[in-house]
């Protein structure tokens, strides 16, 4: 009987880090363990680029730092990055043929900060092409499989990030969430993920998709593990003009989230057996309407019952424009994306077509060859909704709708402290299912899009499984907070994870 891989034998990232710091285990051993696990999990197709030498070099540097007494908050902790974070080491492809051979001359801020904290990178993770999709089937380099059920999608667009954590290949990964792309794959893979408040984590070095929506977020096995990563990467960055300097008067800097987390935990501890006494959980009626499958509803209801047992009180709320978030998002995000992706023209970098007659021909052929069907679809929609004669009816109207959705949440948060509900209407679908109906996937984003449009922080934590044929397909609980409330959110999620063990379950062999 084989023992569990070395890097999975620790109860969370803090424990792992402490063990490395105490030299009970070396960074190199951990890195090798992760490399071996990754090599053995090729069928998941979670990783796009790995390089043992690069990883071990980082691990050796981590061990040297330990020996020199200069260890950081994450020294030796194995991580991996979604392939939309540019890295100087390893290629960055955004899972697209357009960037198949691209190597960035600079690192994303998120990558820089994790490296500075001592984390050891295992490479780059598969995702939907240019972060567009919710099943990781839109990757130019093959679909990712859900570690729980190989026939199922892992979710997307951060499918590789979620699968890698679910399969315990790495204890944490970075993802990006534009309309749900951290929360949804975390939910479908039975792991925890968080999208922080827009502006709290730098977008510098993140291949842009929907600029007013994109946020980086970690995926890990527990809320406490998410805290370890988020606290290091969040903070003001002058290289991103949308980066926020101050969060309700508190400097946006590493440490802010942990301080809020600790303050919330202390308050909860003070109430001993009913720690969440007084916490009002808003439950939007629109999140429990016709589209929600019974199996997901059941798991989410069970989770809410656990919260009530901890002392929280449910408050019925309404987010009236929940469904309208779908057209609003699918106008705004493609519009921004169509412009953001214009730079991929084969002139300065990326794929350039082999034969062409003139400049326009070169550009259009390069893009037609380099960009996949879902990306092209969104480029066309985006150009359309911004075009002369349609701008007011589509783009401007969508932005007005966005403002109303923001107002819906603002009103809701006057009646509650956090909002909870499902992440997705159903469990993971099968790979290859419904590929000829792209908008069906879009409709399934109904519970996550509004949060993105509003820029609010939100998490997904595992809260159960489907039933019957779906018994191995996880379900996630979404927890939504008010602006800058990620610290408290993580604490609220942690309380749930202290009394349940969904997050400790791992996929079978």
């Amino acid at each position, binding site marked *: 009987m084989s023992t569990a891989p070395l890097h999975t034998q620790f109860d969370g990232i803090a424990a792992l880090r402490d063990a490395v710091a105490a030299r009970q285990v070396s960074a190199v051993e951990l890195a090798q363990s992760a490399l071996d696990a990754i090599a053995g999990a090729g069928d998941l197709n979670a990783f796009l680029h790995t390089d043992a030498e690069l990883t071990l070099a980082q691990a050796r540097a981590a061990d040297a730092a330990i020996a020199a007494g200069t260890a950081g908050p994450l020294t030796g902790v194995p991580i991996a990055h979604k392939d939309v*974070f*540019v890295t100087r080491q390893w290629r*960055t492809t*955004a899972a697209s043929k357009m*960037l198949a051979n*691209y190597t*960035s*001359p*600079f690192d*994303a801020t998120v990558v820089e900060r994790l490296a500075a904290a001592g984390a050891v990178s295992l490479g780059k993770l598969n995702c939907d092409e240019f972060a567009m999709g919710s099943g990781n089937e839109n990757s130019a380099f093959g679909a990712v499989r859900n570690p729980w059920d190989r026939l199922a999608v892992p979710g997307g667009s951060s499918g590789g990030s979620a699968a890698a954590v679910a399969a315990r290949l790495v204890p944490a990964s970075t993802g990006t969430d534009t309309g749900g792309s951290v929360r949804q794959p975390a939910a479908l893979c039975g792991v925890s993920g968080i999208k922080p408040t827009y502006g709290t984590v730098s*977008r*510098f*070095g*993140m*291949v*842009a998709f*929907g*600029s*007013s929506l994109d946020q980086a977020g970690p995926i890990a096995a527990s809320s406490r593990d998410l805290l370890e990563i988020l606290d290091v990467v969040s903070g003001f960055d*002058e*290289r*991103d*003009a*949308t980066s926020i300097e101050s969060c309700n008067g508190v400097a946006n800097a590493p440490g802010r989230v942990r301080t809020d987390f600790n303050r919330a935990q202390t308050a909860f501890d003070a109430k001993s057996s009913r720690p969440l006494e007084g916490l009002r959980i808003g439950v939007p009626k629109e999140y429990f309407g016709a589209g929600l499958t019974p199996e997901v509803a059941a798991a989410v209801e069970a989770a809410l019952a656990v919260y009530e047992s901890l002392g929280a009180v449910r408050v019925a709320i309404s987010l009236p424009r929940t469904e309208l978030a779908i057209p609003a998002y699918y106008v705004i995000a493609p*519009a*921004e994306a169509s*412009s953001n992706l*214009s*730079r991929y*023209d084969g*002139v*300065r*970098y990326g794929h350039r077509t082999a034969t062409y007659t003139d*400049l*326009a021909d070169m*550009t259009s052929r390069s893009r037609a060859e380099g960009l996949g069907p879902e990306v092209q679809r969104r480029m066309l929609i985006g*150009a359309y909704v*911004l*075009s*002369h004669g349609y*701008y007011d009816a589509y*783009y401007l109207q969508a932005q007005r709708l966005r403002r109303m959705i923001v107002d819906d949440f603002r009103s809701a948060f006057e009646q509650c402290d956090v909002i909870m509900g499902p992440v997705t209407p159903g469990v993971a679908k099968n790979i290859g299912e419904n590929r000829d109906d792209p908008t069906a996937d879009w409709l399934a984003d109904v519970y996550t899009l509004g949060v993105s449009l509003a820029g609010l922080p939100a998490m997904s934590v595992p809260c159960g499984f489907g039933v019957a044929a779906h018994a191995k397909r996880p379900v996630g609980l979404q927890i939504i907070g008010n602006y800058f409330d990620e610290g408290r959110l993580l604490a609220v999620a942690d309380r749930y994870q202290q009394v349940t063990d969904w997050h400790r379950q791992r996929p079978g062999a």
Partner: protein
Amino acid sequence: MRWEIVIGLETHVQLSTDSKIFSGSSTRFGAAPNTQANLVDLALPGSLPVMNRGAVERAIRFGLAVNAHIAPRSIFARKNYFYPDLPKNYQISQYEIPVVQGGTVSFFVGEEERTINLTRAHLEEDAGKSMHDDFSLPNGASASGIDLNRAGTPLLEIVTEPEMRSAAEAVAYARKLHALVLWLGICDGNMQEGSFRIDANVSVRPEGQAEFGTRAEVKNVNSFRFLERAIQYEVRRQIELIEDGGTVVQETRLYDADRDETRSMRSKEDAHDYRYFPDPDLPPLIIGEDWIARVRAEMPELPDAQRARFETEYDLSAYDAAQITSDAAMSAYFETVARALPAGQAKLAANWIMGEVTASLNRDDLTVAAMPVQAPALAALINRIVDGTISNKIAREVFGAMWAGEAGGQPDAIIEARGLKQISDTGAIGAMIDEVLAANPAIVAEYRAGKQKAFNSLVGQIMKAARGKANPQQVNDLLKAKLDA
């Protein structure tokens, strides 16, 4: 048919910041290709724009100088189109809400003062440069070279209302605008290097018609002379076209200086749909009253204010004041000279500056800063005219010697060395007059017969006899007295 010409100008002014508007790359002109283009300028995946406050300050300074409204909140917008010298394939500009709104620019066309209304001025980034000669692909096919050094340089695009009615007026406005941006220190004004680029929107309409005719946009004009010629050509072209029964097409035309004509570049009918939308990477530009106040406090006295002050304080004509205040260094020079002269003599200083000084600067291709005759020295020279030591005419000779550095450039030393002191002794002058009158009885008779020219002829002879050194006023007075006696 009498035609009215309608002209509006759009001027792209490169702002004199050290770094680019959205990246930290240098804006220095003349570097080797693609050595001043960083990851933001190259639009690498994951790069983001960050606004340069210096560019905004310069826009504010401009807005204050033209009495425009500075928008407290303005928006950066993406102008989307594909071209290799535009790395993101969109230009960050401003569309619906620009930073500067309205404003006026006053200038002289000949002796007449005109005021033009500005529509707006907005911030945007410049594109790179495309070069279509000297490049080929490995297989021999012709290619173009792209230099991105210029990509991202801050521009202020200044748009006038279509209120100009002649090429001369357009050129006068352009010159005034050029002088203004130099004065304000926001642009180096180097048209050869592309720091100041003018596009002219030109149309014609029958005199009296309220509706505008269809306009054509003339680009690629990099000198005032070419601007005038280009507009003149375009006006002629449009009038001839209409008179021959054709219609003017809305299009962009390039001016060809070699052939002195404009040629169609692209029709605005298949013009790009730029799909403008607010740039989500840049928050709204907020300019509060305190920022404006700080910029205002640091501004130099504006040319128009200085012009008005010179008119009252130094009793200069509007025209003279405008001429002198068209250049900051020149007006400072003038003021130093004027203040060193007795009251009421500023006009003399103005004449000297607009005359001898300007002519000498132009002849030797010098700027005021490099001028060999410093303001105190010129003031000293002019004082010698005022106190009667030398005549204005002799003073020009002295000035020339000062310019050449003779006698250390000191006017008194030159006057002494060359023996140029004016003869003001009425006795000596009277004697010279008597001699000339005696030698020219016929001319005297002509004068007495009523021919005024004869008087001038006698003056000329007297000055010749005095080798130019007689005090002209005294000669005139004494001669008249003797003749009329």
